[in-house]
Structure formats: structure tokens, C-alpha cells
């Protein structure tokens, strides 16, 4: 199923001056998640299927289909993330530090057939047009 040749990983890391337990709450309690990410019906239960809902835009209903894969409070949280022609997994890793917590978000995924054929391509096209001036401006 997974074409490892095209799977790619995005990593974002930040130090936050807060305890892992507090950050864990922000990552796993629905109303808090909504405050910083999106409306959701998340439950910190392995196997729970849920969705994030963003504002619908042209060619996309704004729904991200997810499933909880790993719940290890307050250290590790993994859910699948399927939207816009992307099949991916989002992994949160919280590591205590002297001054708070090292927060690491890793998203590993690959474009799906559906996306390559239709949705992702359309969205990408719009995105591309929107960003083209800016991107090419940095090339020369």
C-alpha cells in the first residue's frame, strides 16, 4: 500500500516553557484542540476515528479524516491524517527539558491515488497560482 519511494516527512520542533502534562491536554482535549488547531471529535482512544474540520474552500470540503493510532500520555500521540490527496500520520512527541518541553511534530505521508488524479492536483494548482509570484520572485 505504502510507496516508500514517495513517502516524505515534515518535522517541526519547538521548545515550550510549559510542562508536558499541560501540553498533552492541549493536544488531546477536544475543546483545547479546537482553540489552536480545528474543530474536531477527537478522543484519546486508540482506534477512535475522528475528523478535523477546516473552513470549506473550493474543491475541498474542509474535512480531514483521522484515526488515533498511539496514545502514551504525556509523551507520544499518533494519528492518521487523510485529506487533500495526502495519506499521512502525525506523531507528537513531548520530551521534558530543564525549562519546559521539547515539542516535536512529525508528519509522514505520501500523495494518494485520488489526490494525484483529482483533488490534490486541483488544490495544488490553486495553491501554485496563488504562490507563484512569491516563489519565483526568490529564484532569480
Amino acid at each position: 500500500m505504502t510507496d516508500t519511494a514517495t513517502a516524505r516527512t515534515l518535522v517541526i520542533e519547538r521548545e515550550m516553557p510549559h510542562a508536558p502534562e499541560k501540553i498533552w491536554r492541549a493536544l488531546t482535549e477536544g475543546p483545547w484542540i479546537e482553540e489552536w488547531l480545528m474543530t474536531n471529535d477527537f478522543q484519546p482512544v486508540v482506534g477512535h476515528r475522528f475528523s478535523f474540520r477546516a473552513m470549506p474552500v473550493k474543491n475541498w470540503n474542509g474535512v480531514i479524516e483521522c484515526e488515533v493510532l498511539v496514545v502514551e500520555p504525556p509523551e507520544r500521540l499518533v494519528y492518521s491524517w487523510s485529506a487533500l490527496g495526502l495519506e499521512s500520520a502525525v506523531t507528537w512527541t513531548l520530551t521534558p527539558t530543564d525549562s519546559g518541553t521539547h515539542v516535536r511534530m512529525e508528519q509522514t505521508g505520501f500523495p494518494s491515488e485520488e489526490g494525484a488524479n483529482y483533488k490534490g492536483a486541483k488544490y495544488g494548482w490553486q495553491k501554485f497560482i496563488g504562490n507563484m509570484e512569491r516563489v519565483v520572485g526568490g529564484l532569480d
Partner: protein
Amino acid sequence: MQAVTDNVFRALADPTRRAIFEHLSRDGEQTVHALTYRAGVSQPAVSKHLGVLKRARLVRCRHAGRETHYSAQPQALAPLVDWMSVYGAFWRDRFDQLENLLKRMDP
């Protein structure tokens, strides 16, 4: 893959080429003559632009009689449909929001 992406970006960095490519994407196959008429530049200039687009695989040509017909190959944009750049911007923004929220939450 990076080289392919750069080719595509460079091909589309020029406004005239961009207009030609968008025209072909929107209206379908066109002859060089028709494209020249629309582009507002000389036919050799249009042919040169089409050559750049062709090398980036953004257009394809076929010969029919004395005319060359060009059509857009939008799948050449695939290298640019890069989820990592889209989600990179998305998650950085959400990290900011998360930090703002953490400041408001009880310890």
C-alpha cells in the same frame, strides 16, 4: 526531482510564458500562429517560449501539415503540488496558536 521543479518554476517565471501556458490550459490545443496572435510578441519569440515550456514538459507539440499544435501538460505541475510546503506553513502557524493557547491555560 529538484531539477525538474526548478525547470518548471523557471519556465513559468516569465509572464509571457505563463500567459501562453495558462491560455493552453484554459482553451486547449492551439497552433503557434494562434498563440502568436494572442501573445502580442513575434512568432520567433513565441516559438522560443514554447521551447522553454516544452523542455519543462509543460507543453507538448504535434505536427499537422505545416502547422505545429501545442497543448498544455498540466501534470508537469505535479512536482509543485508539494504537500510538505503546504503543511509546513500550516503547522508553523498552528504551533504559534498552540503557544498562545498554552499561555492562557492554567498550569
